Structures are given as structure tokens and as C-alpha cells.
């Protein structure tokens, strides 16, 4: 039974959006294979900094940006816990669980969220975010499919390192401007404010939040030198 589902999911993953990078295809396949409206994939380094985000549509990307800006949310929690976070009815989440997240997410049309960490043993590679624009959980069938999908995706991602790195062992594949802007901007802030790198990330996040902008848009402005952070006098 499981083998049949696995084969079906593998075939799906191989056939969708051929030619697009793997993270893109993972998200498209997730929406085709599972009863969800959209999907986002986030890959992360050990410091908890994400390096890559892909989303099937603007709503998925909004959700990812929102969680990155706030530093809280179902996928953030899923990574921290090392286990799935299932939210069949977002509107009924208590406000305290993810401050600042629920209202904007509902505003973006999201009604349910399911976050699954991409994990091999103790190593956390990132998270797969699935959302739905209607209320409801994943039934047993869908849950089984989701877990198998996760397995297949994790293994597919592992096939990358050798092919996708340069001679210095640095990941070169899958990257887009939006992914790198956040980290370049963090480095710039480190110099502009004279703070260590982790604080620089928090300051980037705080600036975006205070000015009601996404972290990605703020980062792009910094890199393009349309924006500069000044130290307090």
C-alpha cells in the first residue's frame, strides 16, 4: 500500500513543472497530491536562518515572509519542535500562540495550515508549509500521503549537494535574489549598526515590522542602498 503511494508521489514529482528547480516542483506537486490550496518550502541552516523560500503563489510567499518577519508561526514552531504543527482552523487559534501572525494570515485568505519539518535523524533541513483557504484538517488518508510526500521530498533534496555546490562546497543551485538579499542585508546592518550578526538579523526584522513591510522588501532596499539603518545617537 505504502509502496503504491510512494510510486505515485515520485511519478508526480518527476512530472510537474519539468525544468523548474526542485523546490519549485516540490510545492507544485504538494498542491497536486494533497488536499491543500498552496504550499511553501523553506530550507534552513543550523543557526535557524533560512536560506531558501519557495511558494506556489503570492499567498504562500506572504505566509513565509510573515513568519520570517515575525519570527513566529506554525512553520517556525514546527522546526523548533521537530514535529508537525497542524492547524485545521486558524481563526480559532488563541492570539498568544503566534503574536501578530493570525490576523494577517487570515487576511491573506488562509484558514488552515499544516507545517511539516524536513528532518533526517537529528538534522533539520527546513520545513514544508501547506495551507488551505477553507477550514478543515487532514484526514487519515491525506495525512498518510503528506508524510510519504515529506519522505520523498526529503530524499530528493538530499540528491542535490554534490551536483549543486561549487568547488568550495557552497550551495549554488536553487538560489534566487530574494533568498540572498536577506543575508546580504543582515551583513550590511552588522556594519551600519556595529552589532553582531544575530542582532543584525533581529534589527532587520524589527525594522520591517515597525514599518509594516516584509523582510524581503526591506532587505532589497538595503542592498540597493535605497535604505540605510543608522545607529542610535
Amino acid at each position, binding site marked *: 500500500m505504502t509502496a503504491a503511494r510512494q510510486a505515485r508521489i515520485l511519478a508526480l514529482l518527476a512530472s510537474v513543472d519539468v525544468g523548474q528547480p526542485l523546490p519549485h516542483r516540490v510545492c507544485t506537486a504538494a498542491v497536486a497530491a494533497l488536499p491543500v490550496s498552496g504550499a511553501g518550502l523553506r530550507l534552513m541552516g543550523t543557526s535557524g536562518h533560512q536560506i531558501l523560500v519557495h511558494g506556489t503563489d503570492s499567498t504562500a510567499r506572504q505566509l513565509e515572509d510573515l513568519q520570517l518577519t515575525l519570527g513566529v508561526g506554525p512553520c517556525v514552531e514546527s522546526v523548533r519542535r521537530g514535529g508537525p504543527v497542524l492547524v485545521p482552523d486558524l481563526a480559532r487559534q488563541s492570539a498568544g500562540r503566534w503574536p501578530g501572525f493570525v490576523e494577517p494570515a487570515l487576511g491573506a485568505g488562509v484558514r488552515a495550515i499544516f507545517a511539516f519539518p524536513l528532518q533526517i535523524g537529528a538534522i533539520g533541513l527546513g520545513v514544508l508549509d501547506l495551507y488551505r483557504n477553507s477550514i478543515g484538517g487532514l484526514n487519515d488518508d491525506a495525512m498518510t500521503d503528506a508524510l510519504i510526500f515529506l519522505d520523498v521530498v526529503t530524499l530528493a533534496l538530499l540528491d542535490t*549537494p554534490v551536483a549543486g555546490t561549487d568547488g568550495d562546497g557552497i550551495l549554488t543551485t536553487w538560489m534566487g535574489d530574494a533568498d540572498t538579499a536577506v543575508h*546580504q542585508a543582515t*551583513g550590511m546592518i552588522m556594519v551600519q549598526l556595529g552589532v553582531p550578526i544575530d542582532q543584525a538579523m533581529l534589527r532587520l526584522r524589527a525594522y520591517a515590522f515597525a514599518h509594516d513591510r516584509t523582510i524581503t522588501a526591506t532587505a532589497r532596499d538595503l542592498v540597493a542602498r535605497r535604505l540605510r539603518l543608522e545607529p542610535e545617537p
Partner: protein
Amino acid sequence: MDDRTQLTDDGAGREGRLAAAFVTLADTMVDEFDMIDLLALLADYCVDLVGSTASGILLMDQRGALGIAAASSAAARVVELFELQQEQGPCYDCCRTGTAISEPDIARASARWPEFSARVAEVGFAAVHALPLRLRGQVIGALNLFHAEPGRLRPTQAALAQALADVATIGILQERALRERELLAEQLQTALNSRIVVEQAKGIIAERTGLDTDAAFTLMRTTARSRQRRLAEFARDIVQGIEDLGMQPSPGER
């Protein structure tokens, strides 16, 4: 818990012990387990349940090198070691061919395995039966049964020993697959981390020098190469504030 004591003292009868043996072996595949413990258990089961005098296990590592993974007695270990060193004997042949090899009377096998049959007789074994540790086409070693009396293995004995071997093989292969995946995951994570730190360092250099991020990257890479540093490590030093490329700090940093 001393599993070896359990095997002979629990009084549950042979069938009960047999069932317990399979449960224990299967359990090892579900939970984290110690490979050495598993194989030691397997060797003991062969003695207790199959009725051999002693048993040994040869296992191939991922590069194909054979080693002794378990032995139920010192005599068994002597024989296994001998076969490895001489590259001769039924257990060794079983590993190489992946088929069961049985010698019910070692005294008559001196033509087939000259040095081996002499050594085995010295330690008191009269029959040797080697069963492959194999899953479909993949052979990873051999389970070897040593008997003090000559004679063939009864079909039921052979079937039981092979079943025990099969269960252990699955466990070993699963554990190896998981370890391989963990290694790949570590490599991917390292590659991700390196990319993050290089992008951060680009931003730092760009801000300090006024260069755009592409030119900043070129500067970083050139400097790293001239100092024979690995790029990711060099970038990490920049981000940690250990390395400043001789650039002046900006007003914000003072």
C-alpha cells in the same frame, strides 16, 4: 538485562524462546540499536535455537572489506579469523558467492580447503555450515554454524538459521541506509550554512567598501585564495568579526 541468560534459563520452552528471538531481532529494527549487540544476539540464538556448538558472523563493510562481527565462543572466533587471514574456507566462500555452503564432514574437505580443514579440526569442529546474509541481490556477509559432530543440517535447522540471518540483514541494511542519509543531510546542511555565511560576508564587505555585492564577492574570493583560505571559512571569520580584510570600520562600528 543479560540477554544471554534469558536464552537458556527462562523455561518458556523452545518455541517460546524462538518467538522471543524474532521479536527481539525485529525490535532492533524499529528502535535505535547497537549493531554489535544485535549480531552477538544472533550468534547466541544460533547456538541455543538451532543447536549448533558455536557460531560466527562475518560482515562486509560498505567498501567490501570483511571482518568478524560476532562469535559465540573463542573457538569460533579462531576459525573465523583464520578464514579471513587465509581467504579460505566455507564462510569466506559464502561471503564471496552469496550462496549457502555446507561442509558436513571437515575431515573429508582437505582437498577443497587444505589449511582451513586442518585448523578447524584442531579446535574441535567437525562440520561447518555457512549461510549468506543477503537481501535480494545484495550480500553483506555470512552467518556460520560450527558443529562438534559431523553431519548435515536438518532442513528445519537450515531454514531457521536462514530466517534469523534474513531478519538481521534487513536491520543492518536499514541502519546503513539511515546513516548514509544522515551523512548526505549533513553535507546539504553544511552547503546551506556556507551559502548563508558567504552572503552575509558579501553584505559586510559591500557596506565597508562601498562596492556592490558582486564586486564584494570577487574581493572576498580573491583575498581568500591569496591567503589559501577556504572561502566558506574565510567568510565565517568575516562574519564573526575575526577578519576585516584590513578595511576601516565604519562610524557605526566604533
